[in-house]
C-alpha cells in the first residue's frame, strides 16, 4: 500500500492544466439521453439533450415562465367552434448545417406535416423507426384529438380537431411537438439509415449537435443562423454525472457551470459557498398520498379527512425535503394560474383526527402505504416519507404497513381499481395548463389509469370538463378555482408538498433562468470571465 501513496504524489505533481475552450458552458446532466429525437421518449433528461436546445416548436414557452408565445409559427387563429386551428409559419428559418447534413431549403409546412404524421400515421415510413412508441403523443390523446393536418401553402398549416380543446396550443409547445427537418429525414431514408434521425439530430434550435460519447459527454456548438440570433456561448457541453454529490464536487472544482438536482443534504453548504450561486424556484409539481376511494373505509370522505389531519406535513418538509419543498393544500402548484389560495388546508391535529375516526366507527384500522422505490422530483425519498407517515398514523391508532414494488410494476399495479392501500404518488406538469393536473389525475376518465385515487365525483368532473372546452381564460380560472374547493371537501388525496427546484450554478453564469417545466435551456445564457 506504500507504493500506492507514492503513486498519488506522482499524480498530484503531474496534475493537469489543460487549455480552456473559449466560451464553453458545461452542464453536468444527471443521466444519458435515451436518444436525440424527443418524440419517442418521456424523460426530462432526453428532452434537455434534444428538444430544449436543438429543436423548436410551433409555439414555445417563454423562457422561465409557462406563458405560451409564438415559436416557429408567428401567429395562429382558432375558429369559433374551437375545432380548426390555423398556424402561420415564420419565414426564413434555417435548419442547422452540420458535418452530416447541409440543408438546401428553409423551414416550411412540409417539416410540420412530417413531424406530426410520423407519430400519427401507422403507414408513415418513419412510424416504426424508433420502435413506434410515441408515448407523449399518445399520452396527450393526440390520435383521438387530431382529425387531420392540412398544408394550405408553404407557410400555412391547419389542424382539424375532433373537439374543442382549450389546452391545444400549450400542447403544441411540448417536447413531442418538436419540428424535425423533413429534408434530412428523406435523405436518411434514401441512404437506408433512418435510425440516425434519433442519433444525429438536426433542428432549427440554438445549438447544433457535434458528438456524443455514450454515458460520458455530449457536445454542441451554437447555431450561427438561429432565427432569434446566435447564442452568447459558443459551445455547450453536457457532462453526464449521475451522482448528485459528484456533480456538486465538479461544480466546486470548476468542472461544470450548471447542475440539476442537488442533494437536499448539500443545500446549506451551497448557500454559504462563494463558488456557487444557488438558484431556486417552486416546481410545477405535486406530491400526494392517494387513498383508494372505492375501498371502505376510504370511500368515506370523513375518514380520508381524519387521516389527512394525522399527517405532520411540517416534519415531512423538514426531514424528507430538507426544506426544499412547500406544503401543498391544492392539487395544483401555486405557480400555476387559477391556483385557489382561499382554500384552507386541513390542520395537523392528531387528537381531533382520532376523534373523527372514532365517530365514524373506524377502530383498529390497518392499512398499507405504497412507497415508490425511486426518487422523483415531487418526492425525494418516498421510503422516508412513508416511515414518517407510519409513525404519524400510529399516533391515531392506525397501523400502517409500507409496501413497495419495482417502479414499472408499481406504476402498473397501482392502477388496479381494487388496490389495497393508499399510494404515494405525484405529478410534474407538462404544459402549464391546470387541465394537465386536474383532468389527468382526478377526472372520471382517468379512473383505472392516472387517477390513482380511483376518484370519480360528478360535481368535480362537470367543472373540469366544462373548463376544457371554454376558451376564455377568466372563465376557465373560475371553474378551476371552484373545482379545487370541491377537491378539498372530498379529500381524495392527502396533498403533501410541492418541491422547490434548486439549481446551483457557477457565479460566472449570467442570465440563467430555471424552467418551471423542469427543462434546462441554455439559449440566452452567457459566461463572464
Amino acid at each position, binding site marked *: *500500500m506504500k*507504493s*500506492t501513496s507514492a503513486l*498519488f504524489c506522482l*499524480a*498530484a505533481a*503531474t*496534475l*493537469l*492544466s*489543460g*487549455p480552456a*475552450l473559449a466560451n*464553453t458552458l*458545461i452542464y453536468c446532466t444527471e443521466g444519458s439521453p435515451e*436518444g436525440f429525437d424527443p418524440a419517442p421518449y*418521456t424523460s426530462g433528461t432526453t428532452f434537455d439533450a434534444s428538444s430544449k436546445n436543438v429543436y423548436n416548436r410551433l409555439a414555445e414557452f417563454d423562457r422561465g415562465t409557462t406563458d405560451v408565445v409564438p415559436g416557429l409559427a408567428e401567429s395562429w387563429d382558432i375558429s369559433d367552434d374551437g375545432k380548426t386551428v390555423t398556424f402561420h409559419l415564420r419565414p426564413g428559418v434555417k435548419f442547422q448545417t452540420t458535418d452530416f447534413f447541409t440543408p438546401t431549403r428553409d423551414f416550411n409546412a412540409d417539416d410540420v406535416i412530417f413531424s406530426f404524421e410520423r407519430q400519427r400515421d401507422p403507414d408513415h415510413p418513419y412510424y*416504426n423507426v*424508433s*420502435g*413506434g*412508441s410515441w*408515448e407523449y403523443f*399518445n*399520452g396527450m390523446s393526440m390520435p383521438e384529438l387530431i382529425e387531420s393536418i392540412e398544408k394550405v401553402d408553404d407557410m400555412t398549416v391547419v389542424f382539424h380537431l375532433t373537439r374543442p380543446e382549450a389546452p391545444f396550443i400549450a400542447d403544441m409547445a411540448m417536447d413531442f411537438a418538436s419540428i424535425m427537418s423533413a429534408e434530412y429525414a428523406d435523405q436518411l431514408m434514401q441512404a437506408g439509415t433512418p*435510425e440516425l434521425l*434519433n*442519433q444525429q439530430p438536426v433542428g432549427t434550435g440554438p445549438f447544433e449537435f457535434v*458528438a456524443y*460519447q*455514450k*454515458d*460520458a*459527454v455530449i*457536445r454542441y456548438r451554437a447555431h450561427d443562423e438561429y432565427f432569434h440570433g446566435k447564442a452568447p456561448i459558443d459551445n455547450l*457541453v453536457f*457532462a*453526464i*454525472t*449521475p*451522482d448528485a454529490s*459528484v456533480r456538486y*464536487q*465538479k461544480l466546486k*472544482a470548476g*468542472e461544470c457551470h450548471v447542475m440539476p438536482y442537488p442533494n437536499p443534504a448539500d443545500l446549506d453548504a451551497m448557500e454559504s459557498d462563494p463558488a456557487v450561486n444557488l438558484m431556486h424556484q417552486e416546481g410545477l409539481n405535486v406530491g400526494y398520498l392517494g387513498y383508494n376511494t372505492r375501498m371502505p373505509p376510504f370511500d368515506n370522505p370523513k375518514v380520508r379527512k381524519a387521516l389527512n389531519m394525522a399527517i405532520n406535513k411540517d416534519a415531512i418538509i423538514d426531514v424528507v425535503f430538507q426544506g426544499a419543498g412547500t406544503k401543498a393544500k391544492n392539487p395544483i402548484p401555486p405557480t400555476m394560474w387559477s391556483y385557489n389560495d382561499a382554500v384552507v388546508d386541513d390542520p395537523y391535529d392528531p387528537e381531533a383526527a382520532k376523534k373523527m375516526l372514532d365517530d365514524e366507527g373506524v377502530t383498529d384500522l390497518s392499512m398499507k402505504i405504497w412507497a415508490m422505490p425511486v426518487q422523483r422530483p415531487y418526492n425525494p425519498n418516498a421510503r422516508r416519507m412513508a416511515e414518517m407517515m407510519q409513525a404519524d398514523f400510529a399516533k391515531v391508532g392506525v397501523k400502517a404497513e409500507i409496501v413497495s*414494488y*419495482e*417502479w*414499472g*410494476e408499481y*406504476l*402498473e399495479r397501482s*392502477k388496479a381499481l381494487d388496490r389495497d392501500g393508499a399510494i404515494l*404518488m*405525484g*405529478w410534474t406538469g407538462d404544459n402549464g395548463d391546470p387541465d394537465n393536473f386536474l383532468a*389527468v389525475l382526478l377526472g372520471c376518465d382517468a379512473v383505472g*389509469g*392516472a387517477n390513482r385515487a380511483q376518484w370519480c365525483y360528478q360535481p368535480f368532473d362537470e367543472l373540469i370538463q366544462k373548463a376544457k372546452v371554454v376558451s376564455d381564460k377568466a372563465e376557465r380560472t373560475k371553474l378551476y378555482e371552484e373545482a379545487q374547493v370541491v377537491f378539498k371537501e372530498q379529500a381524495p388525496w392527502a396533498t403533501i408538498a410541492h418541491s422547490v427546484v434548486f439549481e446551483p450554478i457557477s457565479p460566472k453564469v449570467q442570465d440563467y433562468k430555471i424552467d418551471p417545466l423542469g427543462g434546462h435551456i441554455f439559449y440566452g445564457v452567457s459566461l463572464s470571465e
Partner: protein
Amino acid sequence: MLSFLVRRLLTFVPTFFGVTVIAFAFIRLLPGDPIALLAGERGVSPERHAELARQFGFDQPLWRQYLDYLWGILHGDLGISFVTKKPVLTEFFTLFPATLELSLCAILLAVLVGIPAGVIAAVNRGKFFDQALMTTALVGYSMPIFWWALLLIIVFSSGLHWTPVSGRISLMYFFPTPTGFMLIDSLLSGEKGAFASAVSHLILPTVVLATIPLAVIARQTRSAMLEVLSEDYVRTARAKGLSPFRVNGIHALRNALIPVVTVIGLSVGTLLAGAILTETIFSWPGIGKWMVDSIFRRDYQAVQGGLLLIAAIVMIVNLTVDVLYGLINPRIRKG
C-alpha cells in the same frame, strides 16, 4: 497436447449454451413491466400496452423467443436495447474499452505492487516487514470497496483536490477516440496535458479496483515463494554461493510465479464484479455501470446481451489460462 486443447474446447461449447439459456431465462423471470416503466406516471391504456408488447416481441411463445434469440447470437445480433433503441452489441462495444482500460490498469498495479510485496514478505518471513505487509494485505482483502472508494473521494478529491471526482478526462479536451482507450487516444490527439488529465482521472478508480486483486496476489506470491524456498534446488543454489538476489529473485520467483499467474487469470471475474461498484461510484462510462443501470431500467435486451458477453469473456479468459497452464505444466494435461 492437441487432445487436451480439443477436450478443453469441447467443454466450452455446452457451457456456453448453458449460459445462453440462463441469460435468456433470467430475463423472462424478471418481474416488472418495462412498458409501464417507459410510460411513467401517465401510464398507457391496455390496448396501447398490448400493441407495444407485440412490437417488442413479448407476445411470442417463450421457445420461439429463445430460438430467435439464439439465431440472433449466431449472427452476431443481440437485439435492440429497449431504452435507447440501439443494437446491444454496439452499446457494449462502445463502453467496453473503458472497462478494459480500467481493468488492465488495475491488474497492472496489482501485479507491480503485489508480487514484489509477496516476495519481500516471504524472504523476510516472520519479521516485522512480513507481518506489516501481510496485515495490510489482509485489510485490503477484507475491504468493502464501495466504502473504500467513498473514503478516497472524501480525502483525495474533496479534501486535497489532488484528483478529479469522476469521468475519464477533463471536458476541456475534445478529440476523436479511435481506440476507445483514453490513455492512448489522449496521446494520439497530441493535445498538451490531455494524457496527464486522463491519468489523473484513472488513479482513484484504479486503486479501488486493484485493492482486492493486489491483496490476493501478494498473499499468493508469499505462500508460493515460501513453498519454493524450502525446495531442494533452491537450497542447492544457495549452497553453491549464488547471491541472495539471484536465488530469490530469479530461481525461486520464476517457479513461484506459475500459481500466481493462475490467480491473476482467475481474478478477471473478481475484477468485473468490482467494476460494477467502482464504475457506479466514479461515473465511469463502462459496462459495469451499464449493467446496473440496465437492470434498474428493466432493459431486457441489454441485460440479456450484457450477461452473455460478460460470461463469454470470463470463460474465454479462463480457457486461455487453462491452456497456458497446461503448456507450462505438462502434468495437468493428463489429469
